[in-house]
C-alpha cells in the first residue's frame, strides 16, 4: 500500500526548508529591529475563542478543524488554530495586559479546511500585532513595517490597497439593509466578494451620488478620497468620523511616501477589523494583509485596549523571493572519508573543523551531495589526503596541515 500524506497538506524538502527559514529569518530580523518581540501560542485552542460575534465570519468558522479533545466529555470543542491574531490577543488579555503597549510577532501555521485538494489547508504566516496603540501613526507603522519586510525580502513594487472596516459598516447602514443583512453583507465582503457593494448600491436610492464612486472595485489614489471628503460629509454626516479616521492614516502614509490605493469595496479580512484594512500585493498576488481591531481585546476581557496588526503569507512569499538571496549558502562543506581503524581520528578531525566553522559530514557510502572538500583519513603516512571540488589532491601530515590547506595557506 502506498503511503501518502494527508490531503491539502504540504511537505517541505531540505531546499524548500532553507528558503522557508530564510523568509522567516528576514521577517524576524526586520520585526525585531522595530522593537517587536516573538511569541508563540498553542496549535490547539478552544472553539469558543473564535465563535464570539466579531471574531471570525461564519464562512471562516465553517472551515475550522474542530474536534473533541481526549477530555472533551463536556462537549467543549477545540480547534486547530484557524487564525494568528485572535490567539495573540487572547495571550495579551490573559497574561500580558499589565505591560500596556506590546509589540508582538509570531511565525505560525494556521489551518483552514479548503475543499479543493490543490488549495493548502495548512498555511504559514509571519504576523505582527501592535497592541495598546490606536493612532494613525500606529496604523502607519504597521504598513511601513510590512513594506520594509517585503523590501528586505527583495520584492519590488508592492501594491498597498486600503479600506476601512468602520466606513464599510457605516455605508452598509446607509444601504437600507436590516441589521442582519448588514452583518451578512459585511461578512461576504470580508470573505472576498469585492463586487458586492457596487451591486447592492445600484438600487439604493438613499445613496448620494458622491458615495457611488467610493464603492467601485477599482483602486483609486488617496487624493480622490480627500477631494470627496467634504461632499460626503455634507451629504452623510454619519460617515464623517470614520472617513476622518481613515484620512488621518492616509495622510501619515502620504507623508512617509507610501504609495497606496483606496479600494473601499475590497475589504477581504477578518470580522474583528474595526478601522483601517490594508492588503499587500506583489504582481497581482496577495502576499499579506492586516488591519485595526480595537474591539477584540475588550471582547476578551482584556480591557479597553486598541490594537492592530498584519500577517505576511510565508508560503506565497517563498514562491516570489529569489531563493539564493534569502537563503545564502552556508559554511564550506567537508566530507570525511574513513575506514576501520581510523574512526576516532575521523570524528576528532570533524570536531576540530566544525569548531573552525566548517560543515562536516562523515562519508557513509552511497551518493552524497558534492562537498567543497573531501578528506580521506588514512591511518598511515600521509595521515590525510585533501581533495578540492575540482579534484586536485594534497597531502597533509596532521590536522593543522589540513586546516592550512582548507584556508588556502598551505601545500602547492
Amino acid at each position, binding site marked *: 500500500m502506498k503511503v501518502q500524506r494527508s490531503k491539502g497538506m504540504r511537505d517541505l524538502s531540505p531546499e524548500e526548508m532553507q528558503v522557508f527559514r530564510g523568509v522567516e529569518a528576514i521577517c524576524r530580523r526586520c520585526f525585531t529591529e522595530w522593537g517587536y518581540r516573538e511569541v508563540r501560542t498553542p496549535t490547539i485552542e478552544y472553539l*469558543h475563542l473564535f*465563535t464570539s460575534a466579531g471574531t471570525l465570519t461564519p464562512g471562516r468558522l465553517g472551515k475550522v478543524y474542530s474536534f473533541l479533545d481526549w477530555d472533551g466529555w463536556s462537549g467543549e470543542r477545540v480547534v486547530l488554530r484557524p487564525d494568528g491574531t485572535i490567539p495573540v490577543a487572547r495571550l495579551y488579555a490573559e497574561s500580558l495586559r499589565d505591560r500596556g503597549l506590546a509589540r508582538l510577532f509570531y511565525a505560525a501555521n494556521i489551518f483552514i479546511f479548503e475543499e479543493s485538494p490543490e488549495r493548502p489547508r495548512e498555511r504559514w504566516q509571519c504576523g505582527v500585532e501592535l497592541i495598546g496603540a490606536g493612532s494613525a501613526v500606529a496604523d502607519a507603522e504597521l504598513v511601513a513595517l510590512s513594506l520594509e519586510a517585503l523590501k528586505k525580502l527583495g520584492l519590488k513594487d508592492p501594491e498597498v490597497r486600503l479600506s476601512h472596516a468602520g466606513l464599510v459598516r457605516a455605508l452598509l447602514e446607509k444601504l437600507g439593509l436590516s441589521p442582519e443583512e448588514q452583518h451578512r453583507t459585511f461578512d461576504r465582503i470580508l470573505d472576498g466578494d469585492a463586487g458586492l457593494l457596487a451591486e447592492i448600491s445600484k438600487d439604493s436610492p438613499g445613496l448620494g451620488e458622491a458615495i457611488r464612486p467610493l464603492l467601485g472595485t477599482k483602486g483609486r489614489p488617496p487624493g480622490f478620497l480627500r477631494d470627496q471628503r467634504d461632499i460626503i460629509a455634507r451629504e452623510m454626516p454619519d460617515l464623517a468620523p470614520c472617513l476622518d479616521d481613515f484620512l488621518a492614516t492616509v495622510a501619515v502614509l502620504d507623508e512617509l511616501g507610501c504609495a497606496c490605493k483606496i479600494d473601499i469595496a475590497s475589504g477581504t479580512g477578518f470580522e474583528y477589523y474595526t478601522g483601517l484594512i490594508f492588503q499587500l500585493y506583489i504582481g497581482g498576488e496577495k502576499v499579506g494583509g492586516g488591519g485595526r481591531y480595537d474591539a477584540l481585546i475588550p471582547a476578551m476581557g482584556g480591557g479597553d485596549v486598541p490594537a492592530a496588526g498584519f500577517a505576511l503569507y510565508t508560503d506565497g512569499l517563498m514562491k516570489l523571493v529569489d531563493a539564493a538571496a534569502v537563503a545564502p549558502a552556508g559554511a564550506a562543506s567537508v566530507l570525511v572519508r574513513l575506514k576501520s581503524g581510523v574512526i576516532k581520528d575521523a570524528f576528532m578531525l570533524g570536531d576540530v573543523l566544525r569548531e573552525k566553522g566548517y560543515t562536516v559530514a562523515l562519508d557513509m557510502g552511497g551518493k552524497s551531495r558534492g562537498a567543497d572538500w573531501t578528506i580521506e583519513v588514512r591511518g598511515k603516512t600521509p595521515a590525510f589526503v585533501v581533495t578540492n571540488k575540482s579534484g586536485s589532491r594534497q597531502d597533509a601530515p596532521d590536522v593543522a596541515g589540513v586546516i592550512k590547506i582548507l584556508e588556502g595557506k598551505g601545500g602547492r
Partner: protein
Amino acid sequence: MAVKLALPKGRLLRKTAARLQKAGWGLDEYNSGMGFYRPKSQKFPDVLIRVFHEKDIPIQIATGNYDLGICCLDWVEELLVKYPSSDIVKVADLGYGEGSLYTAAVSPPDASANGAPVRIASEYPNLAEAYALRRRLSRFSVFPVWGAAEAYPPENAEMVLLPAGEGNIGGAGLRPLERVLDYRAWLIANRASREAKNIDRIVTSLCGAISGEKTAAPAEPSSASPAGRRPPLKTAAGAVRLALPDGHQQQQTVNLFNRAGIRLDDYPSATGNRRPGIDIKGVAVKVIRPQDMPLQVANGNFDLAVTGRDWLTDHKSQFPGSPVSEVLDLKLRRVRLVAVVSREVPADDVAGLSRYIAARGETLRVASEYVNLADKYARDNHLGHYRVIPTWGATEGFLPEDADLLIENTETGRTIARHNLKIIDTLFASTACLIGNDGALADAVKKKRIGLIINKLKAAVEGDR
C-alpha cells in the same frame, strides 16, 4: 459491474416498498420482518440490493460502497455539513417521507445573554454545530445523542435539534424555536458511479414510479401543550439524578428495582413520560438512551445511570480520563463483545487477521456501533491502514461486502454463525451496570443517597444468585 442499491428500513420502508412494487420491481423480501438484508428484484436481477438503517445510507454512498440509495435529506445534510466534499449527488426528490428539523427549548433563549453556555442535545451533532455557528452562539457544546433528545431540556440541555413528530416538541413540554431544515426522501448517488456506471435505467424506473405524488408540507409543530408541560426535575442541592434506560431494557430494569424494594412510578410509561417517579426522597429520575448515559454522567448531567459496560467502555475509549466509573455490576443482559470476520477470511485470530490485511494491501473497513471501541481495537492491534464505519445496528449484515471486520455484541453467537461469520477475538464480557460520576460521591448528601441506592440494588443482585 453490477449496480448496488441501498434501501432504507425504518420510517421510509413502507412507502419505499409500496412504490417499488408499483414500479414492478418484484422484490422478494423488503418488509419490516427479520432477515431482509439483501432483497432481490425480478425486474432488475443484476442489481445488488441491501437494506440499511437510513442513517447509514449517505455514508455508504459517499464512500462508494453503494452506487444509489434512498434516504431522507436530513441524514444527507448531516454528513455534507461536516464533510462538504463528500461524493454524494442528490439525484431526485422522491416526494414522500417529509419532515422538518426544528430547534426547540423550554423557553426562548434570552437574546441579550449571548455568551452564556448553551448545551444542544441532538441526533444530528453536525447540523447542531453548524446551526450554533450560524446563529453565532459564542459558547455552545453539542451532546450527540442516540435518541430521546426531547428528554434533555431544561435540566440537561438548553436546546435540542430534532425532527418534529409524535408530540416530541409540544408534547414534551418544549416550544419550537426555528425550523432548521425541511426534508423528504431523495434518491442519492455516488458521484463517480454516476459517471462510470450505467445507472440511468434504474434511476428512471425509481423516479418514474415514485414522483408525481408529492404530499403536503408538514404542519408546524405546536408549542408546549398544557398536558405536555411537565415540571422540571427537582435539582435542589444534594438531589441525586438517576438515568434509566428506554427501549427493550426497561422491563429487566423495573424487575430489578422491584426486587430491590425501589418503586418506580410510570416506568415503563405508556404515554412516553420520561420523568418517572421514584419512592426515594431526593432522587430524580429521567429516561434516556443507554448509549448516551456514560457521556451524560461524565459531564455531570446525571450522577448515576443504568447502562451496559459495553457503552461505558466505548466512552472510556474516547475519553480515557473521563470521570465516570462502574459502581455496581447488575449482572443482567450478559453479552460478549467480539471481533468478527467472514468465514472466507483465512484468519482465526487477530494476529492472523493482521497478517492477512498486510498481505492484501487494501484499507481495512471496520464496521461497528461502538466506533470508539472499534477504533481503539484496530489501533491497539496494529491493524494498519483502517477506517471505522459507524453503523446503527444490524451490523452483521455488513460482512463481507461492506466491511471486513465487525466489533459486535453477541449473546449466543447464533446470529453470527447464521450469517456465515466467525468470531476471531473476544474483547470483554458486558452486563448491565450502575455507573456513577466520580465527583458526585464527593458531595456528602449525595453520597448518602447514592449509597442507599447502591445497597438496595446490591442486595437485589446478590439475592438473585
